[in-house]
């Protein structure tokens, strides 16, 4: 519980909710005092809790004077300004109407301040892979095979001036973000950069493994917070695959991963994105994926989220030119006392865009919940857009809940768009077909539930991750039935 009542006048609460590093360093960067000249609206939205959080994040960061982090610094500066006028979301705010973030607020949030010593097990794929532990990039492997001109690694290690310049162009121009986006902007200790130069097709995908090392034990109010941040920048005609896997870590630890991925796809370029989230059942997983697509570019996403007590994915795709292709498919499974939430928006401002979105969720636990808010906006100049959106939910337990809001806004007049929502239990005639062939009801249910999700899983572009996800899902479904 948030035991302290904040009032806007109080600059510092009598007790700090956030543990700060043992050796506080002098703050040189930003004043976190709300400016006295701020307008009445920002006064109204001033939230002392958020102020405290921002301050503890700022304190937690190692002070760095490296010049290559100047773009990180400007990101922090602009994020601080935003955060100070953004209150913690409540269920009165439309984007959080069905998603309760209060357990995060009521925990003792501890920003993780030092690079952890964490033995990551080598992955058995031969792909170039990066291990990000508690928001810190700690390990890189198999990068030798990457073509010339491709950069994969920490921004702090990036020395190429042209790439640096490109990165800084995108880093500070924050777009549609919410409070969590800005919190990441303050708290990200580093930026992992994946840069693909013009015309370069990278054959093997980049495998990003996110580990959570620090975590509160069950019953403890501690909630260590990490802010991983990655930028994928693909220049004109470049192509790459990116796999993001958020792993559970040991046991049922409580932690908060507040992750941001930015993707820029240059003209005619292509990014194939796989996102697999299997974090601890006590974790808060908040994730932003912000995509900018230039003309004739392609962005494909396959998301499989099964972990977390609260998992919220904010997905924003902005079209910057005509003839783009966007394909998004998502499978959410709530097999425990958990919420899986996808808030997506696709903004089409240019002619002849093609977009397809498939959202599927399975809620197989009485306390389980799934939330989907999918907005597709077809603006005035987006003529001849071909847009489709479909959401299907499978509720398998009494009191299981979904809130779905597919929503298509069309202002252009020459477009082809369709959408639909269906909510169902398993088809009885299908179950009977199994029984009539001697297959038990339990096996039939399992096969049908699994097949519901298979449509999304099939879209994962690499067999090994497909196999891995398949067995995770099967295990979770078995455990919850």
């Amino acid at each position: 519980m948030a035991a302290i009542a904040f009032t806007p006048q109080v600059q510092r609460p009598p007790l700090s909710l956030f543990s700060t590093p043992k050796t506080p360093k002098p703050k040189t960067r930003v004043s976190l005092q709300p400016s006295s000249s701020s307008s009445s609206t920002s006064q109204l939205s001033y939230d002392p809790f958020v102020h405290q959080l921002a301050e503890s994040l700022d304190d937690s960061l190692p002070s760095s004077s490296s010049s290559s982090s100047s773009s990180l610094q400007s990101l922090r500066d602009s994020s601080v300004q935003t955060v100070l006028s953004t209150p913690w979301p409540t269920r009165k705010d439309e984007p959080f109407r069905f998603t309760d973030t209060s357990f995060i607020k009521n925990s003792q949030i501890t920003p993780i301040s030092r690079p952890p010593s964490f033995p990551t097990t080598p992955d058995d794929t031969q792909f170039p892979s990066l291990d990000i532990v508690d928001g810190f990039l700690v390990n890189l492997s198999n990068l030798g095979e990457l073509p010339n001109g491709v950069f994969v690694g920490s921004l702090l290690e990036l020395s190429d001036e042209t790439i640096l310049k490109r990165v800084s162009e995108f880093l500070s121009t924050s777009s549609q973000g919410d409070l969590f986006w800005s919190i990441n902007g303050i708290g990200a200790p580093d930026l992992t950069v994946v840069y693909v130069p013009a015309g370069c097709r990278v054959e093997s995908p980049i495998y990003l493994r996110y580990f959570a090392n620090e975590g509160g034990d069950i019953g403890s109010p501690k909630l260590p917070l990490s802010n991983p941040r990655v930028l994928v920048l693909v220049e004109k005609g470049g192509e790459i695959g990116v796999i993001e896997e958020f792993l559970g870590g040991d046991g049922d630890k409580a932690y908060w991963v507040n992750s941001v991925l930015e993707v820029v796809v240059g003209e005619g370029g292509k990014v194939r994105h796989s996102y697999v989230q299997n974090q601890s059942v006590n974790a808060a997983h908040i994730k932003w994926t912000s995509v900018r697509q230039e003309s004739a570019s392609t962005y494909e996403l396959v998301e499989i989220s099964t972990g977390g007590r609260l998992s919220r994915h904010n997905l924003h795709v902005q079209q910057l030119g005509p003839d783009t292709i966007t394909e998004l498919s998502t499978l959410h499974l709530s097999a425990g006392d958990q919420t899986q939430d996808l808030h997506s928006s696709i903004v089409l401002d240019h002619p002849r865009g093609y977009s397809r979105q498939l959202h599927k969720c399975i809620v197989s636990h009485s306390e389980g919940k799934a939330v989907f808010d999918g907005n597709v906006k077809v603006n005035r100049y987006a003529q001849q857009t071909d847009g489709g959106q479909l959401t299907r939910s499978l509720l398998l337990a009494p009191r299981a809940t979904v809130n779905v809001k597919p929503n298509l806004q069309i202002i252009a007049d020459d477009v082809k768009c369709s959408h639909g929502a269906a909510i169902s239990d398993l088809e009885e005639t299908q179950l009977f077909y199994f029984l009539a062939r001697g297959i038990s009801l339990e096996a039939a249910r399992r096969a049908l539930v699994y097949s519901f999700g298979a449509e999304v899983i099939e879209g994962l572009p690499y067999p090994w991750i497909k196999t891995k996800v398949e067995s995770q899902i099967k295990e979770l479904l078995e455990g919850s039935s």
Partner: protein
Amino acid sequence: MALSVFHHPSLTLPSPPPQPSPPSLRPSPSNSLQFTLPAPRPLLLLLRSSRPNRRHSSLRAGLSSAVDSPPQTSGSQPEKKLILQVRDLTAVIAESKQEILKGVNLTVYEGEVHAVMGKNGSGKSTFAKVLVGHPDYEVTGGSVVFKGQDLLEMEADERSLAGLFMSFQSPVEIPGVSNINFLRMAYNAKREKLGLPELGVFEFYAYLYPKLELVNMKTDFLDRNVNEGFSGGEKKRNEILQLAVLGAELALLDEIDSGLDVDAFQDVAKAVNGLLTPTNSVLLITHYLRLLQFIKPTCIHIMENGKIVKTGDISLAEALEKDGYEAIAKPH
């Protein structure tokens, strides 16, 4: 310029809505949709072992009469094993309680082929589906003994494992489940019942391959989802393939000959003939003489308004083919 803002206009709900309690569906203020599954779980199949106990007494009646009464059908030898005995079977549609089967009697011995004919809507498919335990129907009276066991006491999967097979008149499509996986699940369920180890993918394929030839089906069909996008004829072949894989002491074939082209008809008829052995029995539901000329039936039953009103030999089907149901209407 047209301005249109859609908020989930097409909301498809499952049809029919789950029984018995309809789920609560409440649109909430800003055009979002909240859906909560009511407790308890509405699935009929989950409510299965809730059959009346009186079945036990009818089982005894069924068994003793099987010993006492001489076989009703001509041509069957007294020493032949009784496979199926249906007595005064009545059944209603579970939802509406409308009675469809109004006292069906039928006895099938080992190795026999029975045909059931009758006008559209007379209850033939319902009869077959009730025998395999379809949840759309509720048995209200009578008895069914299958190989000495009370069939009505058994779950649908147990009936199948006991050797009863029905090919559906219109088999359902199952997206997301491949045909070969489905077949392997079914075959392994059968093996498990027999105490045999499961067959892996490759072993199963070796077992399956000759069966494919039997029904003249291409291997492509194995990787496709069960019945999804299959043509009418392909669905029929697929049903027979399942029969060939699983085997059955009694196969109920519901209009296996409908909607087939000339070649498919030959394939299916041959396959069914090939599956017939002196110990297998078949109950064919058909509208046409053609299949009956191919697969010589022991006897032919005419169903009318939920009852078997006439039983005879092939001449009954010939008369039907020639002059329609009027020709064989009861003389009085």
